[in-house]
């Protein structure tokens, strides 16, 4: 992983001679975090790979216009989240699926995914997360699995901290009920 700060990477990127090198370092620095973030949204590895590639292509095209008003990683996460959600919407439109069918399609894809090796309880947890409404699912993943601060999530999703706390609370209650219900 690159030891350069975001500021240094941006400054390299703006220098034409170091542009490709800087972008390569940036990809190496953020690819894993963005990969896992997208993977939890679209579930399947192949789809995640496509979305991650598109995300970095968009980042490359837009990096010149990036004004350092927000943190670079917040901006990258925002692009990745938008790309993942757009991908799911396109998938739903392509198969003419209502939301509930798309979620069941994601559950099926999780169960047959050779790159998922969770036991029964982990699979149950993922199914519970997939049963949540889109916004609650995003907030739960970012808070619970990615352990992000509410302030960071707030910047990425452009939502108030209070609203995020409420979404997370509802998500946790629903997941608890799902797990409790499936255990009985």
């Amino acid at each position: 992983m690159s030891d350069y700060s975001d500021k240094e990477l941006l400054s390299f990127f703006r220098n034409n001679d170091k542009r490709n090198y800087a972008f390569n370092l940036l990809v190496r620095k953020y690819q894993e975090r963005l990969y896992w973030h997208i993977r939890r949204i679209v579930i399947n590895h192949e789809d995640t790979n496509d979305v991650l590639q598109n995300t970095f292509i968009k980042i490359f095209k837009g990096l010149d216009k990036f004004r350092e008003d927000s943190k670079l990683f917040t901006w990258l996460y925002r692009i990745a989240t938008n790309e993942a959600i757009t991908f799911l919407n396109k998938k739903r439109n392509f198969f003419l699926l209502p939301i509930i069918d798309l979620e069941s399609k994601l559950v099926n894809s999780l169960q047959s995914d050779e790159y998922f090796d969770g036991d029964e309880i982990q699979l149950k947890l993922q199914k519970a997360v997939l049963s949540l409404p889109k916004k609650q699912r995003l907030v739960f993943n970012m808070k619970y699995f990615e352990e992000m601060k509410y302030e960071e999530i707030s910047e990425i999703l452009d939502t108030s901290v209070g609203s995020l706390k409420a979404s997370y609370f509802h998500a946790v209650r629903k997941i608890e009920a799902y797990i409790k219900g499936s255990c009985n």
Partner: protein
Amino acid sequence: MEDLSKIAPNLSKIKKENNFKVPDNYFEDFPTIVQEKISKKPSTFISRFLFFILKPQFIATFSILVIFFVTYSILNTHKEANILSSNDIAEYFEQNQTDYDEDLLIDFIVNDPNIEISNNSENDVIIDYLIDNDIDYSTLVNAL
């Protein structure tokens, strides 16, 4: 929200781990794949046009249009087949003389503003002459 075990005891018992995996060397190879994609030439006009044409929503719209035109042309063909020729109409009347009322037909022709009845003045003169001279039409026919 800090104490997860109080509001979600079952969830807090589940070990927090990442069970998703990636293919071997995925993250080692990924930067090169992205770099190659970025270096690729931008798509040509033809490929962009084909992509636009082959989009699912355009395929769906095109299919609907094809179905519409096929249905329309089939219905239209049947409609044309239903138009009878003059000979067909004449033949029908010959075979079904009792089925229609001649007076009704005459009334219809006389009252229909779309049908122009020619004003035969020569006939009118002859009829007027016969009436004026009190000549019976059948007597005249017999004499001839």
